[in-house]
């Protein structure tokens, strides 16, 4: 394995390793939990995961970045609040806003870090029922024109894992209306709103579509036997989407 994650245990070798040759960074903050999972998903999608350490300042020339889930700094102050100030985040913010439009995906805590960084609007507060919740969740892909959703059909329903404590997405009405109008609601909860999120929003994108954040965990639905209901692999599309985007010359 070329990438040296601070977590032991080797990742599954990729099927037909790194077709596209794309290198996708996975950032680890103190308290990050799902970095190995995100790296595994990248590998299963056919790209090479590159471990990025929060305190470093080099993006190591990666083609895209994933901010994985977890409880960075314990989420004690606010979810993602402290992680947002990591040196690596400054680099990511710059690269995401640059002309190159680095694709950035924030999952759960990563989504929270993206809102704290103002790369995405709104914020997350505690679930309306105040409890941590872990369940299999159906989402509707509302927009397949982002860097991370192109492999889905708009309107497609997917089942992936949801698990969080602070997952209630909120923003003011003006922001919400703008998100809807600009097609920036990327994912919506279907059937049941598990946390009180405004307008059933599960994930959003920035204007350019290179930055996407979502609360549920696609990286936990990439391998049959270990995902929703021990069968689902609907999350893999997120990771193959970004490869298509990269190959398609967005970068």
């Amino acid at each position, binding site marked *: 394995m070329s990438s040296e994650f601070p977590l032991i245990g080797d990742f*599954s070798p990729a099927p037909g390793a790194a077709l596209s040759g794309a290198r996708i960074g996975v950032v680890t903050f103190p308290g990050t939990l799902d970095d190995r999972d995100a790296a595994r998903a990248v590998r299963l999608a056919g790209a090479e995961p590159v471990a990025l350490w929060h*305190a470093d300042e080099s993006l190591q020339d990666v083609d895209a970045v994933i901010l994985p889930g977890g409880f960075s700094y314990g989420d004690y102050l606010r979810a993602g609040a402290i992680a947002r100030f990591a040196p690596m985040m400054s680099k990511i913010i710059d690269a995401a806003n640059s002309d190159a439009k680095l694709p950035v995906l924030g999952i759960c805590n990563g989504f929270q870090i993206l809102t704290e960084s103002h790369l995405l609007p709104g914020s997350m507060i505690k679930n309306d029922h105040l409890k*941590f919740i872990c369940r299999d969740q159906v989402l509707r892909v509302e927009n397949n024109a982002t860097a991370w959703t192109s492999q889905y059909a708009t309107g497609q329903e997917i089942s992936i894992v949801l698990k969080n404590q602070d997952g209630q997405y909120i923003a003011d009405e003006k922001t919400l209306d703008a998100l809807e109008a600009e097609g920036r609601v990327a994912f919506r909860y279907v059937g049941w709103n598990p946390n009180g999120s405004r307008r059933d929003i599960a994930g959003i994108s920035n204007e350019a579509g290179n930055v996407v954040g979502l609360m549920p965990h696609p990286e936990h639905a990439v391998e049959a*036997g*270990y995902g929703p*209901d021990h069968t689902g692999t609907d999350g893999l599309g997120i990771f193959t989407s970004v490869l298509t985007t990269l190959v398609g010359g967005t970068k």
Partner: protein
Amino acid sequence: MTAEAHKFNIDTVEHAATTPDTELPWAELGLKQNEFEEIVKLLGRRPTAAELAMYSVMWSEHCSYKSSKNHLRQFGEKVTEEMKKDMLVGIGENAGVTNLGDGWAVTFKIESHNSPSFVEPYQGAATGIGGIVRDIISMGARPVAVMDPLRFGAIDHPDTARVMHGAVAGIGGYGNSLGLPNIGGEMVFDSVYQGNPLVNALAVGVMRHEDIRLANASGKGNKVVLFGARTGGDGIGGASVLASESFDDSKPSKRPAVQVGDPFAEKVLIECCLELFKGSLVEGIQDLGAAGISCATSELASNGDGGMQVELTSVLLRDPTLTPGEILMSESQERMMAVVSPENVAAFEAVMEKWAVEYSWLGEVTDTGRLIITWNGETIVDVDPRTVAHEGPVYDRPYARPEWQDALQADTFRASEAGAGLPATGGELKAAVLELMASPNMCDKSWITNQYDRYVGGNTALSAPDDAGVIRVDEETGLGVALSTDANGRYSFLDPYTGAQLALAEAYRNVATAGAVPMAVSDCLNFGSPEDPDVMWQLAESIRGLSDACMELGVPVTGGNVSLYNQTGSTPIHPSPVVAVLGKLDDVARRTPSGWRNDADGQAIYLLGTTRDELDGSEFANIRGHLGGLPPKLDLAAEKTLGAILINASRDGMIDAAHDLSEGGLAAALSEMALRYGVGARVALDDLCERDGVDAFTALFSESQGRALVAVPRSEEVRFNDMATARQYPVVRLGVVDTETSALEVQGLFHLDLGELREAHEATLPKYF
């Protein structure tokens, strides 16, 4: 923190030698007169305040196992060579280690955090998870999953919600933040646990053989380091008598009544330790749990080849007013102690800096055979570490079969008032199934399990509500482990010897049902006061029963924990030996789930085993408010055969689903298998009733052991039948999976709609909590 900040009269060894008559608060510290006299004899003088602190915590029941040690020996004695062959590290270390093959090893252990969880359920349960996880790290392993066997008071008692909400949120809050999937546990409501809930926690970890670490301090000149959280006054409440170590003007000190966990600190500690192991930067390592630095220094030193010298003012403090004795006793969470060779010091420090973990060098390994602790250079502890850590008092507590045991066993359910007018018609039986599945102990547990992350790590192949939790260890080969924890306090109350064996049998069966080969056992023995001869008998009988059964099933006990004094006033809890069994799967892809799926239409449903009239102690009798008689009979040879059948059937692809029968019997197993994926079935009980000579009620609700339900694809029926017959194991075809009806159809008796069943099953916990 500088020494100048401390303004105590330090009680040095020198001072102690010249002031033999100083009154010491040994009784307040929980020592008995004979124990104090033994300490004086060992030292040849009175102990210093710091020494007294160390001996008092290390010789406590919790740390020294003084009441149970004489009995626990059986776990080490009743083992065959065959049982030892995969045991890489046995009882005595922080946790046992079992060989999984391919260079992989697994370590697991279960512990209690009962009384802290009653006082402050959230933090008590959270720190329970934290403590057991550190045990696993200290073996050199990466923790990979946790489990949480829980027992609370009556579901409708006003205090139960407080404990339930807090404990579950605490287990979730801590475990979820560590990135450890929760793969199973237990939930039992019984008024015997009202003032004394049981919060047990299990952690499992995996490692390569070469990464196994032990808690010992060897090699003269190696450095001793304490790292992680700072030391505060946690867990030394009773020790505030040491606030002024000159024992004169004791001013009241403010010490925390409960410990607060910091899961973030622990997560960082895990990663930091794994990086240390990877770089081979530590020679020995020990977690800090009960008895804190007293335990860590004395155990490391006595397991090593020499002695140890440490300077206590070097300990980083959260509370600068702590006295030396309090520092030694402090149970602050999220700390570890390690032994590092001088050439690795710089590399060790680099790892600490990377993870922003605080550390301080306390001293070094010596060749004196003594544990010497200084305070500003003055010796305040000078002991043989073995006398602290391993040679504490051992008691042969008197025990006797309680006088009431005979009357209890004679009071059978059938003969009792509660046992009159049992359901018999189809309608009555259907209502009884609904009542059973809605009852507090049998209802759906997702109110709890939905608060736990079961997916993190991406290796969870089975988790609640399946019979066992299954975790993949090796992504390339699919090698994995299965785990289940079980106990039945009612069975143990009726007959503690058999009760402990039944707990083992159920956990063993659960693991085999998932398709795994049972390999090792860990246990948490939750009992009342050992000073009560009735309770002591329950404990002795349970250990004798469990060790006998382990021997017969060929699965060694590799570690565990004893929790005594679980009682409210003079009323002890039911004897509750919680048994965890770990099994191995060569390829977790072959695991057997506990329910049939949508694609299983027409698959045959078989029941393995014999059904007898065994309702005493059952969940059904419990619902009717009865507890008496004898628990179900146990045939360990039969359990072994059943296990072999289930494992082979899974390995050879003969079954698609399997679920063992335990609490609630066939009624519960059928309901759970159908509800698992919402797929119905058509069954008939006639053949079963005729063969075993029981009526439909008994067939549905008896808790006879050695039974499991399996779903067999049509193409495999012949092979499966042949296998069971070849092993002379009773098997009967009950019916078929039916994906059309969405109901449980028991021919000639009732038609139970799955929607109605699910509603009853799922409503209970949300109603109360």
